[in-house]
């Protein structure tokens, strides 16, 4: 964080964040990661996935897995409502959908206004947070979506490996 702040250019450069809500909190992710935002459509459940992986959707012929950010972040969950939508993010050539409560707008702020994450106790892992933004009297939590998604990837790969190992052991026995 400090390194970024030191860098004058970065401090002046405008960053764009897509902001959305999860329950009563406002979150933001780098707009460069967002391909599009769609309404909630029929999600097909895929068995044997972690509970926050809600399944797959069909986006104009492409199959995209979706995760529920609230479940992922251990937040209180409820039924999907009218404003619930899916943010399609691009991550290492693959697409991933994020289910959020509602999307607000795209903020354009200079890099300098991003404040470092204080050391507070949270259910959300601090390395998922890139920084905090204070707009008027609201606090916006800017997520490092790459971190969130790559965490996804590693856990999934681990689970898949675990499953395979288990299967092999049983087969051997």
């Amino acid at each position: 964080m400090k390194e970024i702040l030191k860098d004058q250019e970065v401090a002046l450069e405008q960053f764009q964040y897509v902001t959305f809500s999860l329950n009563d909190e406002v979150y933001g992710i780098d707009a460069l990661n967002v391909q599009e935002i769609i309404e909630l459509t029929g999600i097909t459940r895929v068995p044997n996935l972690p509970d926050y992986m809600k399944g797959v959707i069909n986006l104009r012929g492409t199959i995209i897995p979706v995760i529920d950010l609230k479940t992922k972040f251990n937040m209180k969950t409820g039924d999907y409502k009218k404003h619930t939508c899916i943010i399609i993010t691009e991550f290492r050539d693959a697409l991933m959908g994020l289910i959020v409560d509602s999307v607000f707008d795209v903020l354009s702020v200079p890099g300098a206004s991003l404040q470092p994450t204080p050391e507070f106790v949270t259910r959300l892992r601090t390395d998922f947070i890139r920084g905090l933004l204070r707009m008027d009297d609201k606090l916006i939590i800017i997520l490092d979506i790459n971190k969130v998604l790559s965490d996804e990837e590693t856990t999934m790969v681990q689970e898949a490996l675990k499953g395979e190992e288990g299967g092999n052991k049983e087969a051997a026995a």
Partner: protein
Amino acid sequence: MEEFAQDELKKLITLFTEEAIEKLSECEEGLLKLEKEPHNKEYINRIFRAVHTIKGTSASLGYKDISDFAHRIEEVLDLLRKDRIRCDKSIIDTFLTSTDFIKKTIQKLSKGSYDLHGSEGIIEELENIKKSSAKRLFKIIFSPDPDMLSRGIDPSMIIEDLKSRGRIINIKAYTDAVPVLSELNPEKLYLRWDVIFETEEDINSLKSYFGGLDEEEIKIIPAAQSEPEVPLIGEVLIESGTISEKDLSDALENQKKIGDILIEKGKLSKEAIEKAVHEQTERRVDSFKQTLTSTVRVDLRKLDRLLNLVGEMVIIHSMLERVINEGNGKTTIDYSSFSIQVLFNQLQRIGRQIQESTMSLRMLPVGEVFHRFMRLVRELSQAQNKKVELIISGEDTELDKGVLEKITDPLVHLIRNAIDHGIETPEERLSKGKPEKGVINLSAYQIGDSIYIEVDDDGRGIDKQKIIEKASSMGLVKSPEELTEEQIYNFIFLPGFSTAEKITDLSGRGVGMDVVKKNVESLNGRIYIRAKKDTGTTITIKLPLTLAIIDGLTVAVKDEVYIIPLQAVLELININRTDLNTLNENTEILHVRGEDIPVIRLGEILGIPDEEKDRGIGIITYHEGKKFAIIVQRVIGQQQIVVKNFGGALPRIKGIGGCTILGDGRVALVLDMAGLIENQMAGSAVIT
């Protein structure tokens, strides 16, 4: 901006890598053919063109070292083309290592950085070949006229003079014409000479040098390659009649390999050598595996056909638009709805044709993969001291690119097996009355909507008795007499089952065949073995024409819809409560016409609470020769579906083969029956 340039460069590099790797396989193919027909200039030209392309493109991307390296190969090829050097095995070997080296470098390049580390040795070899050719070799047959001396010419002076124009490598004087002393005329010359002469001059200037002599007296023949300056000891011995040619070849066969010598001298342990040899083979096989590229070259005619169809579709679209516009505001809808029906039928027909031709774009001739096996067979048989010929047929048979990619590894394995276990050593073959050289037939053909690939060797076959013994010792068989041939061979596909007596550096570790089978089955294929002791083994792989479109049975459990590949379905049965029995409280058995079939409830294994236990439809399927009943709540129907991947974002889930998009836009999962059943069997104690 810089990022943009980076992206562009990346794309260029990918294109370059793909093209280069394709060209390199062309080279390899050409080199192997050239080895068989060293005089076929067409092969040399083909290799030359390929290397030239690599040189050009790498230079244009700024990889000067690669282009320089290619240039060096090109130079030597040029000498070969101009007959300045003779094409022999060592040169082919050098070329092959050079192309391998480029391939490796380019693969490194695609991963980011590259270096030409290790190129020095190859460059030196290439340089040596070049040097050996810079000077030309001539054989000068100098048989002077007996009266030459009286013409005032001294032959010894001529030979002496030659030395100033080059190097005399070998000179041989023939004294057979010299008469006995009493008849010898001191004025006459009785000698003739054969001179092997190395010079930088060409034949014409040499000829003009001997201008004063008759053509009869001096013959200059270009020798393509230096004959060994010192003949090999064996040749001398044969020439002098001390030994026969057979003795020599026997002795040579007994020659030990470097590894054996090292072991004998106690410098290395046997294990260390075996490990090294194994490593050597693995590298050969590895370098072979990673070669398929991610782009497809398409026959222009296929593309034209597709374009025509799209054109037709555009016309129908505008016709449809016209009909709809005409219908607007009119009360007589009959006419337009009739024309719409007609147009819709046409659109449907074109849609199907577009689908077919798009699929055909994915089809590649299997020859692309098959030809690369030539190299593999050459290398592996050399390593094994076996003589093996690979005969390829049906290389124009087309297979879906995805299938082709996935079938390469299993084929490598089968061919390794054939060389390792199938084909015997030359001595063993001779003693069995077979030709010394073993033959592996690799063929592909199409019957109906399936493609068959066959690996057939004329080796020692499979010893059924040994399989039965092994299976009994593993506790897999109780009554060996009752086994069918198919069942016996199927043991080979079990994990950890191998009948090879010893572990060789190639295969025989008991892994492999089960992986082959798994790979083939993941492509919805089947694998069969036929074998006859001492006559050979035939392994047939049957594959569906394409993976992307399959016939599927749409089934539902509660409100979730799944697709079962129709291929896996034997029959559908309406379930009656009375036909279901439980074993041990958790295993259900379905009684069908006197057969007891284990039951798998789809809802249970997919985690859907299944309420109506008594009703449902049993889908009878088979796995490894056994029947299973999959119970679903409803069968919706049968339809052709397009199978899609989950993409990179989801891990592979056992039991789920992919997904498809239904008519209403929802995603439905396509089940992989083999995976599901295996999962289920691993999880429960079904008696097998």
